[in-house]
């Protein structure tokens, strides 16, 4: 079951804090369970995708995380309801670790390139479109830059992934100048992708 497709809305009752959600779930409030998923699902999925590098596995583990959390909250309240996020994170992390261990034990070596090809094909079209729009935004951003040195700063930071102090030393920059260029680039990038319809909030 995809939690986001369940159709239930928790808009009638607003849960403003993790404590409210945790307490309400323990009281048997189904709307609170939906609120839990709506509030945390995207970030849990993001974190698990980052760790597993496998979108399908990340989705499975995310659902398992929420299942375990809801069952736990129904039967026993959290000692610290305010630390609901930490509890979720811990469950997700443990499931991820257990899955990695299981995968290592049953690892086989058959046509790994076919597995990678399948993974590419399973890539979300929407995400691909997002990336294309973002790439165009970067191109526009670089074009707008007034001088070659600013372009070099961004190249060193985002492409070569050098540290700030190394870049400042190489290009004889002050920290302030570096921060200004990067901050302006971030702000402008955000403007460009939002105007291109890429929604990150």
């Amino acid at each position, binding site marked *: 079951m995809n939690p986001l497709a369940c159709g239930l809305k928790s808009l009638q009752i607003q849960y403003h804090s993790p404590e409210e959600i945790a307490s309400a779930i323990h009281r048997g409030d189904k709307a609170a369970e939906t609120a839990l998923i709506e509030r*945390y699902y995207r970030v849990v999925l993001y*974190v698990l995708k980052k760790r597993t590098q496998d979108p399908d596995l990340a989705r499975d583990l995310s659902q398992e995380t929420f299942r375990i959390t809801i069952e736990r909250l129904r039967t026993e309240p959290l000692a610290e309801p305010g630390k609901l996020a930490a509890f979720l994170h811990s469950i997700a992390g443990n499931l991820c670790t257990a899955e990695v261990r299981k995968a290592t034990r049953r690892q086989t070596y058959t046509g790994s390139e076919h597995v990678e090809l399948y993974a590419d094909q399973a890539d979300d079209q929407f995400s691909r479109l997002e990336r294309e729009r973002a790439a165009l935004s*970067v191109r526009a951003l670089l074009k707008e830059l007034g001088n070659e040195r600013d372009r070099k700063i961004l190249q060193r930071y985002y492409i070569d992934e050098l540290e700030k102090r190394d870049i400042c030393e*190489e290009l004889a920059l002050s920290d302030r100048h570096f921060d200004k260029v990067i901050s302006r680039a971030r702000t402008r990038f955000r403007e460009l992708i939002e105007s291109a319809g890429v929604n990150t909030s």
Partner: protein
Amino acid sequence: MLDHGKLPDDLVDKYVRHQLTADEIAEFEIRMLDDPQLFAAVQRAELMQQSFKAQAQAQAAAEPSHDHNFRYLPFRQWIRQPMSLAASVMLGIGVLLLANLSTQQSGTDGLQRGYGVNSVVSIGQTRSATGETVLPSGTHLLQVDVGISLSDASYMLSLSNDENTQTHQFQVTADGNGMVRMLTPANLQGRYQLQVQQQGSTDVLASYSLRFE
């Protein structure tokens, strides 16, 4: 431990670039769960990073002659490369060895470079010169007038003390002006006789008295 105040953008970049410790990552992700704006910032930062790399790859693909693998590294990064570090250490050792060798070679062996003398003494400048030549102890260059000869004559100079217990002999050749030269040993003390003989002859051509004090 992360700063629990407002998280700066560079911390978001550090998270996206996997530059945080495991504990810092956990702390950051827990905060992200309860902060939608932070999560949005992370997604933007990730998208920005990916887009820059994609742009660089597209540019590199469009310029096939460009050497993608070559870039200048700042010195601090360059020196951290294992081969650069090894090369610098070897160079340093080489410089030290050369400096050490050069010091050893510049020793106090003065005989290969020159020899100092206390004085130059001309003996027998006039045929009627008599008397004793007094010299301080040390090395002296003695010039003896043996007369001009039409042939390249060789001479034997003998320097003997009065008791004949010490004799120094020198085989020399006269120059175009009829002069022969010799260096006296440095440790001479007392009276000595300098006799000049032609090589192969027992006849004494001239004899001079010297006193070293």
